[in-house]
C-alpha cells in the first residue's frame, strides 16, 4: 500500500476539519490499514474528543517534539480499532511549541510504521497551518457551501500552490440538497467553478454527525448514515478506488452531473 501523509485543512474554522479527519481515519482503519492521526491544533485540541479518547491521553505531540517521551508512547490506540492511533495535541501550549521542520522529522519517523498519516490542521494561515502542511504528501481542503468558507478555501489553496504542495483536493461538507434545489445554497458546481480543484467528496448535512461527535464515536462506524457513507467514499477515493458520487436525491440531476464531471477529472 502507498504510504501517504494527508493534511486536512480549511482556513475557516468550524467547517468540519476535525470531524472529517476522525471519520476518514476511521474509515481507512476499518479497511484494515494502519492509520495514525495527529492533532496539530496545539492549544485547542479536539480530535481526541471526537474519537472518544480524551481520558487516555498521557503524552502529546509537544512531549514528543521536546523529547519527554518516545513517539510510540504518545500514540494512543483507538478503543474500537486496534490499527488506529492518535497523537493528541498539547492543550497547555501554543502553536509556536512546534516548528514545520519538527513536523517533517516526526512524520518521517511515522512513515515506516503506518500506512496512512492524517494531520488535522488548525484554522488560520499562520504557524499552525504551516506546521500541518509541511510534511504533507496530499492536502485535502474542507469547505462548506457558504461564501465565506469558500473564500477562505480559495486563499488556502493559493497558499498551498505557493508552497508547491498542490494541487489540493476538495471536500464539500454539510451540503443541504434541498436548499441547493431552491437556489438558496451554493451548489457543488458553483463552488468548483470558483476553486477549480479536484473534488473528492460531498458530505450531506446530517444531524447524526453532531450526535456521533458528542458521543466520541465516528459516524462512519454507523451503517445507515448518508454522511458516514460519504466519508467512507472519500477514504476509498484516497485509496485510489473509483467510487461514484452519492446520489443524495434520486430525483435531483445535479449530483449526476457532478459525478460525470469528476469521473473525467480523476487521476
Amino acid at each position: 500500500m502507498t504510504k501517504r501523509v494527508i493534511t486536512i485543512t480549511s482556513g475557516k474554522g468550524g467547517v468540519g476539519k476535525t470531524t472529517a479527519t476522525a471519520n476518514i481515519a476511521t474509515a481507512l482503519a476499518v479497511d484494515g490499514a494502519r492509520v495514525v492521526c495527529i492533532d496539530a491544533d496545539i492549544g485547542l485540541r479536539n480530535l481526541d474528543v471526537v474519537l472518544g479518547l480524551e481520558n487516555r491521553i498521557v503524552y502529546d505531540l509537544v512531549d514528543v517534539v521536546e523529547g519527554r517521551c518516545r513517539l510510540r508512547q504518545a500514540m494512543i490506540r483507538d478503543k474500537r480499532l486496534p490499527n488506529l492511533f492518535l497523537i493528541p495535541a498539547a492543550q497547555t501550549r501554543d502553536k509556536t511549541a512546534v516548528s514545520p521542520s519538527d513536523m517533517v522529522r516526526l512524520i518521517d519517523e511515522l512513515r515506516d510504521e503506518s500506512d496512512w498519516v492524517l494531520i488535522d490542521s488548525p484554522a488560520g494561515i499562520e504557524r499552525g497551518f504551516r506546521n500541518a502542511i509541511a510534511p504533507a504528501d496530499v492536502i485535502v481542503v474542507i469547505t462548506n457551501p457558504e461564501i465565506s468558507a469558500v473564500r477562505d478555501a480559495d486563499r488556502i489553496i493559493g497558499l498551498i500552490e505557493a508552497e508547491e504542495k498542490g494541487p489540493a483536493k476538495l471536500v464539500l461538507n454539510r451540503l443541504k440538497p434541498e436548499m441547493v434545489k431552491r437556489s438558496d445554497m451554493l451548489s457543488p458546481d458553483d463552488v468548483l467553478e470558483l476553486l477549480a480543484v479536484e473534488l473528492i467528496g460531498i458530505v450531506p448535512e446530517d444531524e447524526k454527525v453532531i450526535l456521533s461527535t458528542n458521543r466520541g464515536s465516528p459516524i462512519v462506524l454507523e451503517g445507515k448514515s448518508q454522511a458516514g457513507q460519504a466519508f467512507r467514499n472519500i477514504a476509498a477515493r484516497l485509496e485510489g478506488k473509483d467510487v461514484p458520487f452519492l446520489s443524495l436525491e434520486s430525483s435531483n440531476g445535479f449530483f449526476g452531473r457532478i459525478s460525470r464531471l469528476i469521473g473525467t477529472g480523476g487521476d
Partner: protein
Amino acid sequence: MEEHAKVKIKGIREGLLITVRDDNWTEAKAALQEQLKQQSEFLQGGRLILDVGNHNIRAAELGQLKDMLTDDGLALWAVLSNSQITQQNAQLLGLATRINKPIPERTTHTIDTALSGEEAVLVRRTLRSGFSIKNSGHVVVIGDVNPGCEIVSGGDIVVWGHLRGMVHAGAEGNQQAVVCAMDLAPTQLRIADLIATTPKRRGKSQPEMAKIVDGQVVALPWKP
C-alpha cells in the same frame, strides 16, 4: 559595509542566490539574519537558494533557519554546499541541493515591449484570494481573478476569464484607463479616483469593458 560583505544576494535564473562567506558560521549566520531582516520586503515571494560553502550545518540548525525564513514569509528552496553533511541534512528537510535542473516556470513575466512601447505584466494563472499585484504599467491576466484578490495598475487591466476581485486601473490618476474582462463582476472596480461596484447581473454574462464616460464608470459590451 564589513557586515554585508559576508553575505551576498544575487538574482539568478533559478531564484535568489544567497552566498555566505567561508568563515565562522556563527558570525555568518548572524550576518545572514541581519541581511534577511533588512531586505525581507525585496525577497518576498522569491525562491531562496542558500550557498553555505564549506560549512557543516547540523539538521536542527538548518531546520531552525528554514522555520525562521518561513515565519518571515520567505521560502527556502535549496541549500548548496561542498559539505556532504550539510547536503544530507538539507535533503532530510526536503530541500534541493542542486539547482541545475529545470524548475517550474515563474508565474509573472514582463513581455517584450519593443513593439508597443508600453510596459505590461502578463499573468498566466488563476489569482486566488489574498493575492495582490501592483504594477505601474498595464496588467493582463489569462485566468480567473477570484474574490479577495487585488490588482492595482497604472494603466489598463485585461482579464481573460472571470473578474470577481478588486481592481484599480489608472491608479496614478489616468482617467483614460479601462478594465476589460470576459465576465466583468468585480467586488469593486476603481478607475483613477472613481469607485464603482457591480450591479446584480440579469441574464448571461458577456465580455465587457469598464471606462469613464462623463465622469462616471460605465460597463459597455467589449468588442475588441
